[in-house]
């Protein structure tokens, strides 16, 4: 008799539990992004310069094969509030990228093999697209278009946490009965759970020039930081200016409050 409520409760929770698992499977809502610390969060947050440089290295050596950074120019790399490269380093990075060249003197844009003619980048250039157009990008990626990463942190709910979660969310066991769709990979942080991108990061995908151990977690964290900067290169300037402006306005409000009080004293 006394066990009945308990059994009832157990039975109910089991039924509800499996029901919600089934429901979650049907809706395939993504898991909320992982909570992890980023140096740039909060009103006084700044970008960790070393992390930005490592993240840039990850972008350059891993991500740039498929993803463009359309709105970022090479000259942004030596600007304040960013990875802190020198102008010479930024020029060197630019020169390492191949930019589609203007037509040559004969008016050609491709060489005799049909390959697009390129020239080394200059700091005024923007990061080039690894593919000449959308169709070529889709053909190389099973019909999926790798999105531009220059705004990705702003364009996703969860921002840098989302990017980090996606990058570290691969290699998990799908729930029972779930069949992974062909040419996609299971990633519970992605809406629909079927992401077209193969797991891009492995341990030591890059060898960090500053000697930091390149675990997947480290690489994901660094590239998420870099992409946060790419989405908002002016963040540090914004927060610094905000501090001065808020202090000024508090003081100004104080003075105006005193003036108002003094003035209205004889009316009330």
């Amino acid at each position, binding site marked *: 008799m006394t066990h009945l409520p308990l059994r009832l409760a157990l039975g109910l929770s089991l039924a509800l539990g499996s029901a919600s698992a089934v429901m979650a499977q049907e809706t395939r809502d993504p898991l909320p992004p992982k909570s992890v610390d980023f140096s740039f969060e909060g009103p006084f947050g700044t970008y960790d310069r070393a992390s930005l440089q490592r993240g840039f290295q990850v972008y350059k050596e891993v991500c740039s094969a498929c993803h463009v950074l359309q709105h970022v*120019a090479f*000259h*942004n790399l030596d*600007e304040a509030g960013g990875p802190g490269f020198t102008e010479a380093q930024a020029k060197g990075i630019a020169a390492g990228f191949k930019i589609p060249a203007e037509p040559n003197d004969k008016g050609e844009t491709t060489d005799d093999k049909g390959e697009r003619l390129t020239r080394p980048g*200059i*700091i*005024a250039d923007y990061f080039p697209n690894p593919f000449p157009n959308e169709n070529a990008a889709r053909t190389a990626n099973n019909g999926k278009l790798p999105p531009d990463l220059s705004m990705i942190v702003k364009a996703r709910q969860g921002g840098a946490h989302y990017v980090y979660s996606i990058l570290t969310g691969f290699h998990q066991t799908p729930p029972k009965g779930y069949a992974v769709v062909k040419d996609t990979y299971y990633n519970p942080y992605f809406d629909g759970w079927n992401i077209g991108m193969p797991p891009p990061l492995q341990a030591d995908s890059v060898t960090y020039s500053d000697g930091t151990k390149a675990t997947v977690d480290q690489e994901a964290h660094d590239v998420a930081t870099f992409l946060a900067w790419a989405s908002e290169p002016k963040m540090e300037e914004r927060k610094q200016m905000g501090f001065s*402006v808020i202090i*000024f306005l508090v*003081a*100004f409000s104080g*003075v*105006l409050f*005193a*003036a108002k009080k*003094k*003035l209205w004293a004889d009316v009330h």
Partner: protein
Amino acid sequence: MTAATADGATRRDFLYVASGAMGAVGAAAVAWPLIDQMNPSSAALALSSVEVDLTSIVVGQGVTIKWRGQPLFVRRRTPEEIAKARAVDVASLPDPLAENSSLPENAPATDANRATKPEWLILVGVCTHLGCTPTISTPTDVQGEYGGWLCHCHGSQYDTAGRIRKGPAPRNLQVPVYSFLSDTRVKVG
């Protein structure tokens, strides 16, 4: 009573002055970004200098490159052009000043002050009269009497060092700031 009112009045005045002063500071702080946004953006500034590869330019040949939105003449002079430029009496020129952005204002228009490496003449290809682009003189297509440039808009004529010799232009063609990064590469701007 008078002391209290006087005190109150001065404090109120102080508050008004303080408010006014802070307001003025605030207004100036707000005005600056609204004014500065019209200055060249970082993208424009990134294009403020250009590096020119000199390997493909043969003697007696020149190229015109777009720099800061204007034509830039990069010319590899022949020994004859250099000699002709050096033979000119600087004091007799309509504009005896070097017009070289790397040199002081009063430097004279000697050929050495117009081209640090005599073989390479780098000039801003904008006529100092009203801004047209002058045309280079070649042996097969002679422009003007001085072997340099002729501006077709109003007839200004420049010599083999880009100095004004005849016509309405008041000044020699401007020599921009440049530095040789190597024998085959020059950075202008």
